[in-house]
């Protein structure tokens, strides 16, 4: 295998070509993603920003195989990506996702330990060879959780702890690309900093690449290497993070940056 990373070309998705009864009553299809090209190289953090409804989540769900595109190609290390189920196991493991809502991304009836172990049941090849309980404890420790968390259900965990369990579940399969859809947006600022720190540590220690979706430009500037700006399903600008923040070229990017608030210089 080579390490071309993730390549997305000409991605198109539309929703709402509804299955109205006898073909009637359906709404016209809405293009959520209208021709997106995107690359995430190995070890790189690429952020996707844009207003709500611009298609960020849809792109993410195509990458992990939850949504089947109407058109376009996705590949990882030159292996074409279809729906999750149709991918070779190695690719299934390589691409994992962290969701926005920390609570609803964990099954409320399962303990944190069972949630992490489920990943290994699905992919025995990634399962630790020795004691699974010890492996769970190590993984939880890696995301900053106490071993006692393994026996607790999501309702007994805080939002930040749930998000750490989510990250541990994704890391259990030793992925190479982590898709984070607004993974820190629902967290309180003090907890958000913890999770950002964790994600950047994980990237450093595992050489992970990330597709990091967020509407918070401040967070993006802290963590991203490259930024893709989306609007109405299209990429309007992509550039290395610092270039984009200091020399935005597209008017929409400039409008986004102007509207963003900062603590400093607010007294107007």
């Amino acid at each position, binding site marked *: 295998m080579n390490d071309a990373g993730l390549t997305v070309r000409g991605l198109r998705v539309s929703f709402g070509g509804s299955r109205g009864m006898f073909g009637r009553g359906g709404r016209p299809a809405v293009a959520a993603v209208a021709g997106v090209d995107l690359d995430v190289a190995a070890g790189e953090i690429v952020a996707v920003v844009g207003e709500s409804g611009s298609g960020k989540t849809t792109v993410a769900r195509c990458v992990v195989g939850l949504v089947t595109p109407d058109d376009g190609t996705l590949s990882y290390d030159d292996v074409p990506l279809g729906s999750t189920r149709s991918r070779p196991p190695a690719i299934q493991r390589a691409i*994992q996702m962290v969701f926005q809502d920390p609570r609803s991304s964990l099954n409320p009836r*399962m303990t944190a330990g069972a949630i992490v172990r489920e990943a290994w049941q*699905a992919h025995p090849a990634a399962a630790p060879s020795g004691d699974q309980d010890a492996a769970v404890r190590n993984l939880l420790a890696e995301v900053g959780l106490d071993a006692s968390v393994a026996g607790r259900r999501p309702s007994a965990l805080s939002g930040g702890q749930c998000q750490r369990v989510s990250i541990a579940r994704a890391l259990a399969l030793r992925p190479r690309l982590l898709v984070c859809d607004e993974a820190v947006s629902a967290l309180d600022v003090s907890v958000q900093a913890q999770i950002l720190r964790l994600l950047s540590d994980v990237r450093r220690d595992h050489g992970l690449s990330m597709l990091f979706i967020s509407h918070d430009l401040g967070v993006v500037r802290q963590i991203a290497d490259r930024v893709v700006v989306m609007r109405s399903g299209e990429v309007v600008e992509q550039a290395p993070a610092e270039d984009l923040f200091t020399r935005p070229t597209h008017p929409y990017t400039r409008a986004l940056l102007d509207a963003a608030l900062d603590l400093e210089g607010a007294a107007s």
Partner: protein
Amino acid sequence: MTTTSHPVSTSVGHDAATTTPPLPEMRRRSARRVLGWLRFLPHAVIAGYLFLAVVGPLLVDYDPMVTSITDRLLSPGSTTSDGSTAWLGTDGVGRDVLAQIVLGARTSITIAVLTVTVCAVIGIAVGLVAGYVGGWADTVAARLIDVLIAFPGILLAIVIAGLFRPSIAIVVIALSAVGWIGFARVVRGTALSLRERDWVSAARVMAVPRRSILTRHVLPFVAGPVVAMATLEFALVVLAEAGLSFLGIGLPPTAVSWGQTVAAGKEYLEIAWWISTFPGLALALLVVCVGLVGDQLTARYGGKR
């Protein structure tokens, strides 16, 4: 990171102020406690019926084929020709009404349990496939349900039961023919909303097999609404079974059922009110109690009909 590393914070007590203040408004508990116990009265009554259905037939000696001319239409509390007391009287051919109620409870409850089980299994299977798998499976299920719902359920049951040799199995099949629809709809709705939950998406991203997703991430969450549905369905089945046997359809003459007893008493309503009244009361009490429990469960789990 989550457990702090500061030396000062190794033990965290709890502020007395968070728990102490006596709050007068929150103390009026006794009235609520009585109400709280009353909520469980229907549960107790149902438990009584279940006990009666299981143990009762062992205690009463009754044969529907044995009639006794001398004991016809005895009023409640009379002494029969063999010296025993007919607490709830006897019917037009001298059979004990109390014994019929006890045996009828077993018939009713057996049929209701079997029917609800069959309905739940079919309904859950159809609902899960329609709701979770979606696509053409959902379309087929939805059309089937639309067609079946257009038939009045009890008429369909009468037709089915009337076409075959009477037996308990036929009654169960007849009542299940449309009974599963309620379950299928509740389960489909729940599965449809669960499919979009992030924990299900997470499992799909990890390529967890579809069967495990259904059993682990979807099924446990339909249990509540299904139980609520099952109690309501139970009440309906008890009523419908009584209706069928009142009409003399479905059950063989050797079976004892409340509906048959009520029907047998209807000719004597003016001279022997007890024959129809007591089994009718037994039926009504069970249906009302099951309905009350069902309402409580529905309120708790939000299962929609």
